[in-house]
């Protein structure tokens, strides 16, 4: 009996503890709600973006349009319903002016209705499926889309002696996008895709899939895996002697993620990828970005996620200046149509689709000064998201 009486008291006490006074609305604070996966499988995404966001604030000051900028970082553990609850709380309780982050597609899609309902712009800094910007008129993206990267590669490959390609992608949204757009474009360019393989997200071992590719003997293997799994694919590719069997490895830049590239070893040399950002991009803006990012984060190299976060902050800051610190529709209007020089190169936010338009570079892994970098050798300018045309 006593146990039960106590539990009543405990529940009541817990309720009282939660009932902290609601935060007073402060008119001179511009709040950014940054929702990222800080723990779990996508934790590196969260780290990179948070670091990049804080770097931007450190470089450009924490005041905009006369208001103090407050960055509220929350961990959504990559669970869409948690993302949604956090977003709802940020909008309703903290009264943020803008939502940002979103490490995976389901998280972004889950929050879209809230953005619409509350008229809060949301800046997608990581998720890469085409359909996200269609989910709400308040979605603005600064990351990239898989179709952008895949199509570029499917244009490049046939011009460079690669006619038959087997695709190997992780079995989830961005992976399916990559597979579809690469295959369609390659077929359009006269190539062939004998097999499309999908690897379960949880799969610890790529061996059987790679063996299958080996047995088919295409000119090249096109790979898309989420950032972090690229090293495993690379290693097993080499282990299976596929390079010696004459099969080239091509893929979107997630395979040679800057975060991990240096640790992959010389086996990664010569791998050709297509992506929107390389830490070796030879522009003054990028060199400054990489140097200051490394300095602030114990020598960590920024990757494309960090670029997405950095540019997202830029978009938010400039939009806030344009809307004089207001949120809602004014802030959204300030975001559309922004053209600027990002560490990745020139980019702009398309006013119609609210999606990012940037250059897609073709890069090869090379060793410079003892470190491995994605060195750009070709560029396709101002690539819009092909996924929207459909």
């Amino acid at each position, binding site marked *: 009996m006593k146990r039960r009486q106590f539990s*009543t008291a405990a*529940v009541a006490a817990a309720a009282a503890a*939660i009932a902290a006074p609601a935060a007073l609305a402060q008119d001179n604070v511009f709040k950014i709600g940054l929702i990222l996966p*800080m723990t779990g499988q996508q934790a590196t995404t969260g780290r990179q973006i948070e670091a990049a966001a804080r770097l931007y604030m450190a470089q450009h000051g924490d005041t905009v349009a006369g208001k103090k900028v407050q960055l509220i970082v929350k961990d959504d553990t990559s669970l*869409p319903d948690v993302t949604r*609850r956090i977003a709802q709380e940020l909008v309703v309780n903290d009264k943020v002016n803008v939502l940002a982050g979103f490490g995976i597609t389901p998280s972004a899609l889950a929050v879209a209705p809230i953005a619409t309902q509350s008229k809060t712009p949301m800046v997608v800094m990581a998720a890469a499926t085409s359909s996200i910007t269609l989910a709400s008129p308040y979605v603005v993206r600064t990351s990239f889309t898989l179709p952008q990267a895949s199509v570029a590669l499917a244009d490049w490959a046939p011009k460079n002696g690669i006619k038959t390609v087997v695709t190997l992608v992780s079995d989830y949204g961005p992976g399916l996008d990559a597979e579809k757009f690469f295959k369609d474009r390659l077929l359009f360019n006269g190539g062939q895709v004998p097999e499309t393989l999908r690897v379960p997200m949880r799969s610890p071992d790529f061996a059987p899939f790679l063996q299958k590719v080996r047995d088919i003997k295409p000119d090249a293997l096109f790979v898309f895996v989420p950032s972090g799994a690229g090293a495993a694919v690379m290693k097993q590719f080499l282990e299976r002697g596929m390079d010696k069997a004459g099969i080239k490895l091509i893929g979107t830049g997630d395979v040679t993620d800057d975060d991990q590239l240096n640790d992959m070893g010389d086996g990664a040399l010569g791998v050709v990828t297509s992506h929107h950002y390389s830490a070796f991009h030879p522009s003054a803006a990028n060199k400054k970005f990489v140097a200051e990012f490394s300095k602030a984060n114990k020598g960590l190299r920024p990757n494309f996620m960090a670029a997405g976060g950095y540019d997202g902050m830029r978009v938010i800051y400039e939009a806030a200046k344009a809307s004089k610190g207001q949120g809602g529709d004014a802030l959204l209007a300030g975001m559309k149509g922004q053209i600027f020089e990002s560490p990745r190169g020139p980019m702009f936010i398309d006013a119609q689709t609210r999606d990012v338009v940037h250059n897609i570079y073709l890069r090869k892994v090379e060793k410079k000064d003892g470190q491995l970098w994605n060195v750009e050798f070709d560029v396709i300018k101002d690539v819009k998201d092909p996924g929207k045309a459909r």
Partner: protein
Amino acid sequence: MKAQDALLGASRMKAWELALWLALLASPLALPTHALIINEIAIVALFAISLDLILGYSGIVSLGHAAFFGLGGYAAGLLAKHISPDPLTGLLLAAVVSALAGALMSLTVLRGNDLTRLMVTLGFALILYELANKLDWLTGGADGLQGVTMGPLLGRFEFDLFGRTAALYSLTVLLLVFLVLRRVVHSPYGATLMAIRDNRLRAMSIGIPVASRLASVYTLAAGIAGMAGALLTQTTGFASLDLFDIHRSADVMLMLVIGGTGWLYGGIFGAAVFKVMQDVLSNITPQYWTFWLGLFLVVLVMVGRERLVRPRSWFARGKTQEAR
């Protein structure tokens, strides 16, 4: 007379319980800024109660209860998207679908030891996860089921951005199910369940039909878990693959174990403690809050689970008796 009173009294609502439930139902109105987390707590509490039915009262160890949670969630979502946005119909359908699945799966949990049951239930949840991923034309795959817009509850109450309607909805369903289950566990049926849990062989020998009892309680628990899943889909407006994920089953088991198995309030209490702690900790350290949660669990077990609810024993020396 005394014995009879005691037994009957066990199933009546006591004064403190009445007060507790009134407080819970009033909480979304009294604490409007926390309506969202109250909603989440109510849903998980319902899920935990359904697990308590099979774990605490019948001794079936299951690490895959999320299979029914997810089935209910997707069923409700699909119904809302394609046929009817009425929340209550969705709730009913979800319960029926999950109960059917539970009836089917109950055939497999009757045999074997704890570890076997653990793995079989887990296996089902994992298979359903992969199925939902594969059938992406139906479920939206890894992107999740989009476009679930719920109609107003009972034709009058819209689901608002503040989450008030959602929280009240979930709490009401929780209360109603709780009352029903309370009757069930304090009935002769419930007594046979506990007998099976404590000593299956002996229960069999006094003529209790063990297999059909276990099958029926598993079906019931599955149906309720499905309702919890439906509530989540309806109040958040979408369903995603992680409804089936192993961490959901593991989390709900943790909550139940924290709160105490075998008395229905354990699920509610454990859900509240776990969720609040998770929220508070992840606000303090967004990156490393799992460490503190782990530490809490380790300390909790070392010190003794019952001590959490008996503050006097914090200062007592010597081992406490196991509650069961």
